[in-house]
């Protein structure tokens, strides 16, 4: 927000009055739209008391929403751990001085970054059913988690790569000059710093994983969104249930974004790494990652 304060003068009394008018008019327009929406919802019978009251009964939470929330968090947690492992392996692979390894990792990372997560989920799920490697009850979670791992892992691989690139050259040179090999210097000097710098970006990626896990509901992996649908079916209140589901997702992700910000500030304050934080090492891969 470098330009924020210089783009305009501090508003004087006249401008302030104008802004006040604007605020009131804008507020009225928004309120008018909200009223129109509510009026129409009411007319269509979507605001009836029982439809909404049933959302706040103990059964809905203990039987549907909390298990759903847990399933969402479970899938997201496994995926982010898997994605980190995948990302570190392939990210360092792309930095390897052995050309074939570099190429191979590059192709894998670029491929999984280009393929839609939903496409991977559909395929893995159907493919497991054909191959029957393992217990059928795990097909949905396995398809969800593996697809999320592969996509987010390749995003993290790019984070690792740019995190290491972002370090001052002197770090590696110092490592080499005290007699470390290139891979030793990568492992014990560059990677730890790059990973610390990546931490906020990783938490932001967790928001992406959490949101994307909702795609698993198409399989169906019974996570929060599927459970919201089940509530809508069992209690005949599809629309209210979806609205509640959206609110839960927003709250959860907003909390995570908030945590990411805190971690970032903390690392910046500590200022231990040579590279600073990787806020957006590759354009659009972290806070701006617009995957579903």
């Amino acid at each position, binding site marked *: 927000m470098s330009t924020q304060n210089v783009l305009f003068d501090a508003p004087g009394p006249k401008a302030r009055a104008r802004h006040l008018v604007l605020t009131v008019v804008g507020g009225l327009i928004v309120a008018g739209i909200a009223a129109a929406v509510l009026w129409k919802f009411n007319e*269509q*019978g*979507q605001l009836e008391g*029982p*439809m909404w009251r049933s959302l706040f009964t103990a*059964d*809905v939470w203990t*039987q549907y929403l909390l298990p759903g929330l847990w399933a969402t968090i*479970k899938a997201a947690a*496994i*995926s982010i*751990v*898997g994605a980190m*492992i*995948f990302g570190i*392996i*392939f990210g360092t*692979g792309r930095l390897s001085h052995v050309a074939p*390894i570099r190429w*191979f*990792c590059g192709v*894998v990372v670029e491929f999984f970054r280009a393929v839609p997560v939903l496409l991977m989920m559909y395929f893995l799920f159907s493919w497991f*059913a054909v191959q*029957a490697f*393992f*217990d*059928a*009850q*795990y*097909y949905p*979670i*396995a398809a969800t*988690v*593996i697809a999320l*791992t*592969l996509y987010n*892992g390749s995003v993290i691989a790019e984070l690792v790569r740019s995190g290491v690139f972002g370090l001052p050259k002197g770090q590696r040179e110092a490592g080499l000059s005290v007699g470390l090999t290139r891979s030793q210097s990568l492992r014990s000097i560059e990677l730890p710093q790059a990973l610390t710098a990546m931490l906020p970006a990783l938490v932001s990626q967790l928001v992406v994983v959490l949101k994307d896990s909702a795609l698993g*509901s*198409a399989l*169906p992996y*019974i996570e929060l969104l599927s459970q919201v*649908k*089940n509530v*809508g*079916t*069992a*209690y*005949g*209140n*599809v*629309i209210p249930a979806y609205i509640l589901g959206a609110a839960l997702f927003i709250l959860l992700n907003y909390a995570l974004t908030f945590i990411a910000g805190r971690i970032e500030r903390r690392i910046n304050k500590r200022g231990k790494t040579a590279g600073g934080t990787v806020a957006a090492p590759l354009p659009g891969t972290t806070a701006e990652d617009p995957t579903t």
Partner: protein
Amino acid sequence: MNARRIGAIAATAALALGLSACGSSDDGGDAGSGGDSGKKLKIGIKFDQPGLGLKKGTDVTGFDVDIAKYVAKELGTSEANIEWVQAPSPQRETLIETGQVDLIFATYSITDARKEKVTFAGPYFIAGQDLLVRADDASITGPDSLTGKKLCSVKGSTSAQKVKDKYPGVQLQEFATYSECLPALSTGGVDALTTDDTILAGYAAQAEYKGKFKVVGQPFSEERYGVGLKKGDTATCNKVNDALKKAFTDGAWQKAIDDNLGPAGYKAGPGNPPTPDACA
């Protein structure tokens, strides 16, 4: 750095975590295919089909559930020893084949393709694809009055495919679940919801939608609901068939229909109660 190995490791790790997380819900009741007295019986049902198999809170209700309870009792398993397992349509064959369920009562139509993987007892009901319309809508009387109408169904379902193939003059809105069609139907955005008449009657009978919808009652296909069993288990198949025949004659079958689908004014169509096929 081998992609396959890494993928395998990731998969194993994911599964290990998944297994440990889910393990607690498996209480290890190893019911055989027969279900001897006192032993647990794992029965696959739909969890999201009002009137047929619906889990609402901790209760399971529906026509399939009532028939399943009756059959279980005839096989010597009390209601307390039944473990209800969710059996979504695409997973039904695998659940049977891998022994995760002993019996399936989940709007499971008997087809030749499925017979290659599972053995069917029954049928215990003949359903047919039908239409659900607004209670005050008199313009749709059957499949012949559909031209120019808007229908709603679930993406990838056989009902949706049939409408596309047989009634090209009809517009089709496809959603992920039938329950998403209901708000669209009640506001007039679509004119009818189409799938098996039992499923439609289940929605029409649901307390939340009481009086809003009606089933047209002109089925245009035949779906024979069977009980899914492990392939080749003729002994259990015969026992299930005997239990079903008893349910047809002693009124339990009719009661299950009246209790669950009756509020929609639903009457079982022609051919009901059916005669169970010979077990092969």
